[in-house]
């Protein structure tokens, strides 16, 4: 939490601390919008700091703290619209965009911030691992879920379990392509979350290039990728699965039917690449559903996690 407090202006930080008291564990997002009160989004409720308004000076302050007073470093981040800070927390940015040759060059006036708090939940994947492998190998697995349903948390824990191994299965070599620095939350190449003893992580690397680099140079058994979306990502993943590597990745989608209809993912479903599909949903504010399907759509497991 210290790193998050660090980037907020002292007055706002104080107001937030006063309001939260001991609910830090339940906090999911802090949302800052210019000229508007601050929004605190908890696991199952939303709280507003009506008396604290986010001003223009606060905007500059937050941006400076995010860049460690070195705005020249943030070119890529301002183009992609997010910054990952120490501790793996991700700060999403919005504002006025400057375009160059019809593609986004960077965000010029950053006026909206979304501070998403990253959490490491160990052993969350343990109960599901037996469904994701046969005696010797793991299946290609796709994790499907809407934003904020815990895809990355689950993925991180799976990486850890696969690479550390268990009494039923020895640890495998895991290569993680962490384009958004969310899985390992690396700082200067050193992951801050524990990702397993046989894991290698390629931080901030574009997926398409990273997948091929890892396969060529790090000889992985399992490749872990976050948030695939474009046709190029899909192509690279198909290449990887045909190169004899198991791929585990996440994708944004709310239901099983929807994900099967996504145009960019068509090749994957036509080739039946993924033998297991994990669907994460959040039907109630404090409850997650976890469904595991086979490639034919047969449901293997329904489980739920209640947040305390």
């Amino acid at each position, binding site marked *: 939490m210290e790193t998050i407090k660090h980037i907020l202006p*002292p007055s706002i930080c104080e107001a937030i601390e006063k309001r939260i008291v001991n609910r830090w564990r339940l906090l999911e997002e802090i949302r800052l919008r210019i000229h508007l009160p601050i929004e605190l989004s908890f696991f199952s409720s939303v709280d507003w700091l009506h008396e604290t308004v986010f001003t223009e000076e606060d905007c500059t302050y937050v941006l400076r703290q995010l860049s*460690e*007073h*070195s*705005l*020249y*470093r943030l070119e890529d981040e301002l183009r992609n619209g997010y910054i990952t800070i120490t501790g793996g927390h991700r700060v999403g940015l919005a504002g006025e965009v400057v375009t160059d040759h019809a593609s986004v060059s960077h965000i010029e006036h950053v006026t909206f911030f979304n501070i998403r708090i990253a959490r490491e939940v160990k052993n969350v994947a343990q109960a599901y691992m037996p469904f994701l492998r046969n005696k010797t190998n793991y299946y290609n697995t796709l994790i499907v879920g809407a934003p904020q349903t815990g895809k990355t948390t689950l993925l991180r824990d799976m990486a850890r379990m696969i690479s550390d191994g268990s009494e039923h299965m020895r640890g495998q070599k895991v290569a993680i392509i962490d384009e958004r620095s969310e899985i390992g939350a690396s700082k200067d190449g050193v992951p801050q979350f524990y990702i397993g003893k046989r894991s290698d992580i390629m931080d901030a690397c574009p997926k398409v290039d990273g997948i091929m680099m890892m396969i060529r140079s790090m000889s992985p058994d399992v490749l872990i990728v976050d948030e695939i979306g474009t046709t190029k990502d899909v192509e690279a993943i198909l290449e990887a699965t045909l190169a004899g590597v198991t791929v585990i990745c996440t994708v944004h989608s709310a239901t099983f039917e929807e994900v099967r209809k996504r145009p960019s993912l068509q090749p994957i479903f036509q080739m039946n690449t993924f033998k297991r599909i994990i669907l994460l949903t959040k039907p109630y504010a404090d409850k997650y559903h976890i469904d595991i399907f086979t490639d034919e759509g047969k449901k293997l497991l329904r489980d739920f996690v209640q947040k305390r």
Partner: protein
Amino acid sequence: MKIIGAFCIVFATSFLGFDMSNTLTNRTRQLKQLIVSLQMMEAEMVYSKRTLQQIFHVLRSKLDYPITDFYDNLTKRLNGRVTNFYSIWSQELESLRTISSLTANDVEILQQFGRTIGQHSAHEQRKHIQLTIYHLQLELDQSRDKQQRYATMLKTIGFLFGLLIVILLF
């Protein structure tokens, strides 16, 4: 007794002369170092994309006193929670001024530069650095010119002036 006094006078005025001439020489040297440090800063910012603190840390080890002290202090002060970088830069410049031979004008150029550090994209930051280097270069040329003209002269004048006083006294 008189002779000892005479020696003292000559020694004192010579020292004064040497000191003034040293100030000129040192200013040239320090300006040169500042320019070099800005060039290194530019490379670190544009190509290495390091944070200011990391950059100052690198600069610190590559320069001589008193410029190295300036960057050293900046590195240390960036360790804690920083709310306003410019005020730190400005304060450190003031203390640099007291220990260096830089003139008020030189320091003012760096003050202006301080307002731009870390506030712009790499492309614009580079322009600001180059502008500052250009201004410092002008000061350096002027300083070199002065040094060539006056440095040796001041040393001689110091000694001769002491001698003059001694002769007048006798």
